[in-house]
């Protein structure tokens, strides 16, 4: 066995814990964990849960930055615990908190209900322009047409962008970067005809107009989705729609 896999060093993790039945408010609890160079923060938390305190709660699933479950604040930055390595944080103590801007359910687990509602509100599915029976074959698309939206379909709903967004922090009703990335994934799809339905959902004070182009959402995104681009190009679209709706009034969908 090489040295890299033998836990020879240890690091202090200060985890913000909140047990709703007993804690009035969250408190930092310190743990010391032996680590090896290939150990992620998620694995460090798992080792605490396995060997020190089985009540420590956190979400995780895939361990490889695909499922988007293990988002948390690591030294104040929103990160996926599974692709953040202890070796890059050592030797200083690491502060681990639940995602900023979200209500804490328990320990590192936050409430996701509002985020799911926002995603549902923007029609997160293709609404075909014209009805096309299955017998008529597939809806075709060129590589260039796919390139127009493909990166927005890489979103894993990890909510790091929401934790980074100060406007979401100030206004929890703001539709936010992640849902806007998904909106653009469909509005940018050449096979889709639901653009107007979606624009109607985001033209309010809590829609695109709550964004002030801070841009950190795109910097913290682990999948380079660039949600800031999704939000801000839809300011242009929504502004155009604002003036067009005077010229050609439509009935509500």
């Amino acid at each position, binding site marked *: 066995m090489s040295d890299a896999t033998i836990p020879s060093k240890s690091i202090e993790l200060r985890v913000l814990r909140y047990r709703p039945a007993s804690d009035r408010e969250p408190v930092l609890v310190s743990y010391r964990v032996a680590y090896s160079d290939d150990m992620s923060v998620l694995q460090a938390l798992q080792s605490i849960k396995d060997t020190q305190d089985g009540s420590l709660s956190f979400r995780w699933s895939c361990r490889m930055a695909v499922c988007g479950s293990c988002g948390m604040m690591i030294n104040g930055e929103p990160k996926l615990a599974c692709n953040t390595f202890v070796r890059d944080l050592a030797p200083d103590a690491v502060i681990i908190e639940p995602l900023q801007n979200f209500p804490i359910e328990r320990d590192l687990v936050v409430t996701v209900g509002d985020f799911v509602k926002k995603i549902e509100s923007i029609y997160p599915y293709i609404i075909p322009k014209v009805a096309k029976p299955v017998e008529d074959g597939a809806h075709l698309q060129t590589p260039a047409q796919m390139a127009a939206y493909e990166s927005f379909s890489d979103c894993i709903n990890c909510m790091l962008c929401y934790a980074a967004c100060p406007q979401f922090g100030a206004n929890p009703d703001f539709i936010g970067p992640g849902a806007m990335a998904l909106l653009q994934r469909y509005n940018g799809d050449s096979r889709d005809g639901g653009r107007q339905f979606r624009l109607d*959902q985001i033209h309010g004070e809590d829609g695109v107009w709550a964004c002030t182009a801070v841009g950190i959402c795109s910097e913290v995104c682990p999948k380079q989705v660039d949600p800031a681009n999704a939000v801000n190009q839809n300011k242009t679209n929504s502004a155009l729609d604002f003036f067009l709706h005077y010229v050609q009034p439509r009935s509500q969908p």
Partner: protein
Amino acid sequence: MRPTILHHPAPKRSVAPVFWLLFGAGGMLSALFGPALIILTGFMLPHGWGVPANFSDFPHVLAFVRHPIGKLVVLAVIALFFWHGAERLFLTLKDMRAGPPLLLRLMTYGVAALLTLVTIALLLAIGF
């Protein structure tokens, strides 16, 4: 067969696009010509650098501002620059929680609107 779509009620439309477009127009105008304008009116004209010394004389500048195109240039620059600064100041003050939003709007958009009217009035008073 069109699939059944579960419709969500649309939220109330914001008037933000109006201010955002004024902000954007001012931002673009200043980004393209702002540095040259400051160099021109802040350094070259007051000190006669690269331009004739009489270039910023009263009759010259008056003639420029009396010309319809000159009026449009002056109005676009002054008003749009104010709208640009107003939007940014409003958002920053809101970020800083400096006061109730209505007051902040009056202090920023309100001032920009007022100074736009003042600029128009001055341009008309100066005549053609």
